[in-house]
């Protein structure tokens, strides 16, 4: 259910050096955090901007993986296939927003239930259309050895891509006209509308962006998993827990903070007890966190600021 189970860390007996040991621990945290962040990114963009939880998120990831698998097996290089998955899933998200989702603004529970219906249709529909399995995508890159440890190049790239995605999203929201309009809409839709911002269009593009990010993550994680109609289910627990713990107050900071924090909890538990207990530890953490910080750790910043000002 997480990165560490697929890329086993080869650890030989004896002869440990401090530096590689440290690098190996960092690598474990990094892959788990990257996995959580990639699973949750599309979801948290849509939640933060539109206050809608997309329960079809896992199926959007499945769509991305399917598109990438199709593309790769028709000779398109993997990086291009990933970009194709982003745009294809994003376009699908935009169509879905226009047809269905836009009826549910302000009815968050209605949106939750409806997107669950959509997820059932997508998963079972994929099974009916394409059968139980898609051809797998080989993991790009090999492994590098550092002392007694070896690291998967692909997971190192994924850690890098997660950082790039976070920076890119920050730039989109801070430095582009769309980002400005989106932040205005998020703060107060009616005032934004009165200022001439087409909030409907902002919502449409945001949902498309969230769906596209889900597709992108699905494509990126596809080489590390089996590509199947119900593959979306494996992302449900980690993605939603990351979002619950992150909260919707500050989208990007929440996602980064929550995935980092949760990987700190998950990694040691997974390594000692197994991946299932790692995921279980995530749920327990989520329950404890909401008891103390109901609005997630992204509300922590807002809470601390007045104390600092004092």
């Amino acid at each position, binding site marked *: 259910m997480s990165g560490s189970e697929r890329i086993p860390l080869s650890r030989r007996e004896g002869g440990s050096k401090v530096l590689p040991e440290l690098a190996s621990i960092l690598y474990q945290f990094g892959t788990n955090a990257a996995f959580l962040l990639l699973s949750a990114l599309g979801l948290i963009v849509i939640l933060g901007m539109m206050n809608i939880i997309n329960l079809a998120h896992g199926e959007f990831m499945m769509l991305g993986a399917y598109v990438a698998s199709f593309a790769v097996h028709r000779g398109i290089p993997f990086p291009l296939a990933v970009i194709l998955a982003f745009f294809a899933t994003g376009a699908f998200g935009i169509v879905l927003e226009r047809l269905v989702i836009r009826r549910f603004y302000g009815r968050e529970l209605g949106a939750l239930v409806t997107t669950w*219906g959509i997820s*059932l249709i997508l998963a079972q529909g994929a099974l*009916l259309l394409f059968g139980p399995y898609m051809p797998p995508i080989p993991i790009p890159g090999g492994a590098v050895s550092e002392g007694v440890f070896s690291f998967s190049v692909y997971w190192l790239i994924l850690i890098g891509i997660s950082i790039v995605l976070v920076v890119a999203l920050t730039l989109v929201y801070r430095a582009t006209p769309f980002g400005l309009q989106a932040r205005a809409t998020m703060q107060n839709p009616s005032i934004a509308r009165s200022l001439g911002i087409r909030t409907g269009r902002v919502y449409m593009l945001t949902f498309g962006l969230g769906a596209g990010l889900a597709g992108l993550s699905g494509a990126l994680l596809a080489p590390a998993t089996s590509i199947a109609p119900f593959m979306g289910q494996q992302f449900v627990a980690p993605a939603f827990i990351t979002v619950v713990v992150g909260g919707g107050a500050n989208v990007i900071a929440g996602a980064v903070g929550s995935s980092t924090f949760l990987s700190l909890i998950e990694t040691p538990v997974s390594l000692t007890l197994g991946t299932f207990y790692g995921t279980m530890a995530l749920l327990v953490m989520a329950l404890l966190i909401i008891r103390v910080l*109901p*609005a997630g750790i992204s509300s922590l910043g807002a809470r601390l600021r007045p104390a600092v000002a004092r």
Partner: protein
Amino acid sequence: MMRMLQLLNGPHDLGRGRGFWSGMVLLAAAFLAYPTIASSFSATNVAYYLLNIPMALGLSLLWGYGGVLSFGQVAFYGIAGYTYGIVAGNLQDFAWGTEAGVLAALLAAGLSAAAFGYFLFYGRVAAWIVPILTLVLALLLATFLGLTAGYQWRVGDIQLGGYNGMTGIPALQIGGLTFQDYAFFYLVVAIVAICYVALRIWVNAHRGQVLMAIREDVLRTELLGYDVRLEQLRVFVIASVLAGVSGLLYVQWGNYITPSAMGLQQAALPVIWVAVGGRDSLLAVAIATFLLNQLTYILSSGGNQSALVIVGALLVAVMMFAPEGIIAGLGRLHWLHWLRARRRAVPSGPASSGK
């Protein structure tokens, strides 16, 4: 007693008055008479369509009346099913073994809901977090039970069985009576009737009004002196015990349970029954649960894989075009006509003309 009858006839569900209740009595009589014309096989099938109604009614109470949505009621369904299997299986040689199993199962469902719900409701989280975390709970339970294959995973004499599940679960026995075939059918009919009547009284009583007040406006209700967290936790536990009742009936029906009873697809079904029926009407939910269980049973027993696509599309369509539910919508339409006809017949008094 009179007060109870008044509450039963209260306004917070479809159908009131002598005509309606005569119809309900006729319906109950029809169910009771059904075994005289049906084989034990078809009676058991009908019992299967009925046995999920308590879980659906619980979700209706929670979501439709209380405004709190849960996607993980199957978790408590499964907890009750597995607990019954473990306790009743181990106590098979004792006269009261199965009764102890029932008690343990309902306690397990209620206590686990209370513990889980404490964190959800006392943290006062946003509305979407409750369904998400209950769903995660159900999925993780299913994953966990899937890992329990092998002899080392056993409680007493009973093996949990991994993905193949727990088999050979004994049927409920009271005295010399074993609830199988027709007896099981009557048991299900009786429990469904009791659940409906009890919940209808509950929603029309003071507690039910407080519940609806919370749905309308949480802060206002708190400032009338109610501990909203406690009220929500209470109704969550009730709904989960009702899910446990359905889980108990399910393991009586098939004498087995597998982790997929708590899987993602099973978790979606109660939400679909309640949404399609009309979440703020107990009666509509009960009817929809019966009909949709029949539909999915018939669809999937034909080996048809499109059942999930069909119910998923039904759910999306209902949420888009009839968010108040199909059966409740039809029922209200009918009731409106009936009321209008009555209003025309009886000229309205000065009170309703207002100021």
